[in-house]
């Protein structure tokens, strides 16, 4: 197995007048979970579709598992499991029928393996897919991506339709796949989704890879809005001087502020009072990107 699972080299994709990818250089190592993070329209799905040979690059090249997606497409896709963000199939069949067919396209998949995955995700295999909820449909997609134990999993916004319990189960499945030496490449526009599972994160914006960092580094950079509700009135001064905290405002017993990086100091300061509730917003990606772009100037 080559050390690099996915490599793209100056990958460009034009859609008529708009540009989907603008020179993407990316490397995903074998055996890691790589998260491609970016806002909608940044080029995540375009990248994935190029890797699967569903679309062809305008220029540049890609190599997946050491193979050319175009020339060796069939051989390559045998070793890939793919989950689309929006898992759409003909609803007039049951998950069992669909998964059996898809397994046969791969030369047959052990029915026990399908069964085991369906049980783990609590998926009813005998109801027509059109009668299933969105989350349950997405489970069918998860099963077909994992069932043949592929070397590489390409997952486009994989947990968008899953409830928190299943997101957790999904993360476990991903970690387990990686512990077996498989590679996972996933895209997302939500930082928490990537943080939960990925080892490294590439940030894509306007069709280019702007940064690659470990999840740990990224967490440090993240800035989020935090609200703390106390059981008594507080003053802004108590919190203004805490490292990483800015834009502090207080309304009676409610503190609002912005937090950069680690939450430790803020939590310890808050703990001196009686805390009723803490909410922390999902870090805003646009803000994060803005940071990377103008990092030096701010």
């Amino acid at each position: 197995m080559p050390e690099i699972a996915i490599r793209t080299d100056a990958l460009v994709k034009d859609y008529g007048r708009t540009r989907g990818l603008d020179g993407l250089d990316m490397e995903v190592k074998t055996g890691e979970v790589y998260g491609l993070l970016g806002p909608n329209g940044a080029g995540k799905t375009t990248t994935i579709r190029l890797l699967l040979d569903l679309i062809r690059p305008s220029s540049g090249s890609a190599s997946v598992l050491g193979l050319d997606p175009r020339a060796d497409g069939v051989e390559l896709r045998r070793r890939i499991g793919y989950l689309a963000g929006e898992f759409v199939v003909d609803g007039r069949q049951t998950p069992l029928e669909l998964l059996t067919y898809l397994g046969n396209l791969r030369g047959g998949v052990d029915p026990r393996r399908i069964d085991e995955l369906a049980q783990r995700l609590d998926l009813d295999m005998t109801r027509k897919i059109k009668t299933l909820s969105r989350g349950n449909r997405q489970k069918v997609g998860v099963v077909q991506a994992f069932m043949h134990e592929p070397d590489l999993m390409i997952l486009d916004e994989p947990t968008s339709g899953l409830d928190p319990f299943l997101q957790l189960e999904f993360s476990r499945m991903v970690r387990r796949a990686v512990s077996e030496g498989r590679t996972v490449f996933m895209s997302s526009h939500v930082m928490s989704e990537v943080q939960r599972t990925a080892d490294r994160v590439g940030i894509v914006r306007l069709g280019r890879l702007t940064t690659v960092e470990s999840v740990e580094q990224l967490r440090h950079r993240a800035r989020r809005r935090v609200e703390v509700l106390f059981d008594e009135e507080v003053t802004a001064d108590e919190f203004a001087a805490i490292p990483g905290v800015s834009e502090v405002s207080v309304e009676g017993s409610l503190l609002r502020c912005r937090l950069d990086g680690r939450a430790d100091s803020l939590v310890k300061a808050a703990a001196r009072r009686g805390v009723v509730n803490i909410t922390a917003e999902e870090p805003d990606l646009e803000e994060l990107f803005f940071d990377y772009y103008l990092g030096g100037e701010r």
Partner: protein
Amino acid sequence: MLRNSFTKWLRDNRRSFIGWTVAIAAVGGMYAAFWPTIDNPQMRQALENYPEALLEAMNYTDIATPAGYLNATVYGLVVGLLIIVFSISAGTRILAGDEEAGTLDLILAHPVSRTRLALQRFAAFLVTVVLIGVALLVALMALTGPARLEGISIGDFAAMHLHLILFAGLFGSLAYAVGAATGRRGLAIGTGAGIAVFGFAANGILPQVEGLEWIKGYSPFNWLNGGAPLRNGVQTGNVLIMAGLIVVLVAVGTWAFNRRDVAV
């Protein structure tokens, strides 16, 4: 039925395929059963009083014989049109329909080549068309006695149905090819319908125009029953034209499909 894309396509479309087979055999049989009501002196008298040009435009010149009647009303009209509607819709669905529904991606992300998938599905369509042709043949054969359709041999019936099957395959391959090359369902249906309308006009009305007689040779309807296969057996030239066009359309459509981006 879940073994490959050929059987899966038959299975996924079984309701539509069976429905059309039954419908076409039933409607064709029904029209054939009307023959005794046409076959009487008054009707013949009435037809003789029609202007010759009108009869030619309607392809009714030979309507006073069983073969001519079946040609004009069953093959050249009701069954011909029904089978076109079926073939265009089925041919479109093979790629463009699936693509616009967003369900093609998943299959193409599997280890199947685009050519293989497309050809397996097209083969499933062809099997269905043969099935329709055979079902209608059986229905008409059963009616030859009760509906007094005398004087047509089994061989000529079979020849006519070979033409009919190729005629359906031609419209199916046209819609398939446009859909394969563009991924656009509406365009595939529109092109098929446009050619059907042209073909119908070019086989009846247009040749009545002075200097336009040659256009008949370019009508799929003429390839279907020109030369009267029901009376004269297989018309080799027309069979070769239709079979050749099917091969070319499928080849070009599949080639174009292999080269283009698949839509989300």
